[in-house]
């Protein structure tokens, strides 16, 4: 694996727009951070806005990013475990693509959440595969030739193998980072620490940029040291309408409105015209949501979870 000098820069700050323009190329394999909360929503909108094409998405349950990118025709392939908005509703774009080829057919390779996590861990460790007891006996290996089984050479017991994931680009949202890319997370991190290590290029987005001194005061919170990171973008409210622990609550009323629109292809297209192409950046999206609304989501969250360090 080759590294370029972006990893060695002492100031990696960029806007999200610049970072995606610089690092995401047509045909790339990409991966996003988050699971339910901490999702990379801003990132998906920006990729769509920049008209990227023929991407492959690898992810455990990349619900919003997956559904948006499929609907926008950006993806040619998904290697995933799940695509749905959970409590808020189903992923209509994903279903339309698989069931009806709208806007165009996509390839889907099915895994489970754990085994996608293992694929990132394998990539992070630079080993070609990892073994697991998941998947055995199920129909996932039947339809996915890259899930292999072998007899353990030590005990003879059967294990399943999954191949390392090595995305071209990982875009991972964290609580905070310094400008060198020392990225810290409060609360659960999903697969973030392995995602950044599995990928060839890494864009860290964060709720806030802090000083390196502040990072050094809490070294246990660093999930991605600077040597894993190529770019850092400060993108507050990057997960809206999803939640960010310790920062802002889930805006589920917004999500319900959005998913009602997504039920039809026309509704999705109108939504994208308005919320993606009708603004020129995530700042534009947020202004459209309304800073008063965002502030209330932040304020209500602070009553429940509050950074105490």
């Amino acid at each position, binding site marked *: 694996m080759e590294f370029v000098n972006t990893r060695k820069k002492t100031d990696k700050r960029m806007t999200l727009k610049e970072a995606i323009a610089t690092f995401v190329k047509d045909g790339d394999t990409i991966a996003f951070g*988050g*699971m*339910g*909360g901490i*999702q990379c929503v801003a990132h998906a909108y920006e990729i769509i806005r920049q008209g990227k094409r023929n991407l492959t998405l690898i992810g*455990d*349950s990349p619900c919003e990013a997956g559904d948006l990118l499929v609907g926008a025709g950006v993806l040619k392939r998904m290697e995933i*475990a*799940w*695509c*749905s908005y*959970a*409590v*808020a509703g189903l992923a209509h774009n994903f*279903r339309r693509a*698989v*069931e009806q080829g709208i806007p165009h057919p996509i390839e889907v390779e*099915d895994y*489970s*959440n*754990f*085994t996608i*996590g*293992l694929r990132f*861990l394998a990539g992070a460790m630079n080993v070609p595969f990892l073994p697991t*007891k*998941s*998947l*055995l*006996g*199920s*129909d*996932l290996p039947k*339809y996915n030739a890259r899930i292999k089984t072998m007899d353990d050479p030590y005990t003879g*017991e*059967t294990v399943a193998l999954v191949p390392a994931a090595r995305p071209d680009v990982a875009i991972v949202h964290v609580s905070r980072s310094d400008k060198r890319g020392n990225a810290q997370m*409060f*609360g*659960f*991190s*999903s*697969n973030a620490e*392995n995602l950044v290590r599995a990928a060839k290029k890494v864009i860290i987005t964060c709720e806030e940029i802090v000083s390196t001194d502040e990072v050094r005061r809490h070294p246990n919170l660093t999930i991605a040291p600077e040597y894993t990171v190529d770019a850092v973008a400060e993108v507050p409210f990057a997960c809206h309408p*999803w*939640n960010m*622990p*310790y920062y802002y*609550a*889930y*805006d*589920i*009323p*917004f999500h*319900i409105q959005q998913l009602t629109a997504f039920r039809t292809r026309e509704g999705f297209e109108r939504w994208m015209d308005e919320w993606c192409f009708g603004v020129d950046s995530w700042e534009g999206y947020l202004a459209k949501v309304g800073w008063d*609304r965002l502030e*209330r989501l932040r304020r*209500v*969250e602070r*009553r*429940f979870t509050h950074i105490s360090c």
Partner: protein
Amino acid sequence: MAENQNFARDYNLPELLVAAAARELRDGDVVFVGVGVPLLGALVAKLTHAPNLIMAMESGSVGPMPYRIVLGIGDNACVENAICTTSLWRLFADQQRGYFDVGMVGGAQVDKYGNLNSTAIFGSGDYYHPASRLPGSGGANDIASSARRTVITIPLEKRRFLERVDYITSPGYLNGYDSRKKAGLPGGGPVAIITNKCIFRFDPETREAYLDSVHPGVSVEEVRANVSWDLKVAPEVKVTPPPTEEQLRIIRIIDRAGIYTNNGLKNLTFESYIQLLEGSLEELQQLF
């Protein structure tokens, strides 16, 4: 605990299902939960007969005590008062290690051996061209593979209860008998299927599902009519107990807007949502 055994009279079906899920859990259990009925069941259990129950969520959170309704396995509520926040792969590895006593799983189809499909309904097509593409495994395959026991929740409908599912997303007992063990799966397999009409359990030898209890007002015939295979029935079919008054009280505090138990999402505005959160804080704080 005597007063807890007073059964409630005025409850709805989701509330009965939550109580049934809660009854599958024991004190001290570590439970791998998904959102909705299973999570409500786990919270009700923790707040009644199982105070030492620990919830684990696949986003990477262990032991939260949320002071609000949980709106996803990655909701901020999952980090509230958690004893450990970590990563997805670590929690699944812990499950594969055998630490999780119970996993709650669902699906769109189930078969007589408790195998679940949440990947695709083939219809006249196949996996590549399905009539209906579902979300996929998520963590369900992993839970079904490794949890020491699993509890399945799924609505009872003939098109869902099949001799064989189209696609095994989450393994139950595979082909019955010892086929699950032979496949190398470490977990114990399903112990119950909770439906909107009844509860099934599994024969310890054949591993086939049989009808164990019907919910109040449901007949055995009604259940049979909604199952595609020749259903086995317990010698004495029980009646599923309704929620106790105590369980019901707690359900209604936790899900005060009826999001999971009364179609409450439908009428949620931004204002009423913020009020819901603020109102929950105080009331739930007193529960834990």
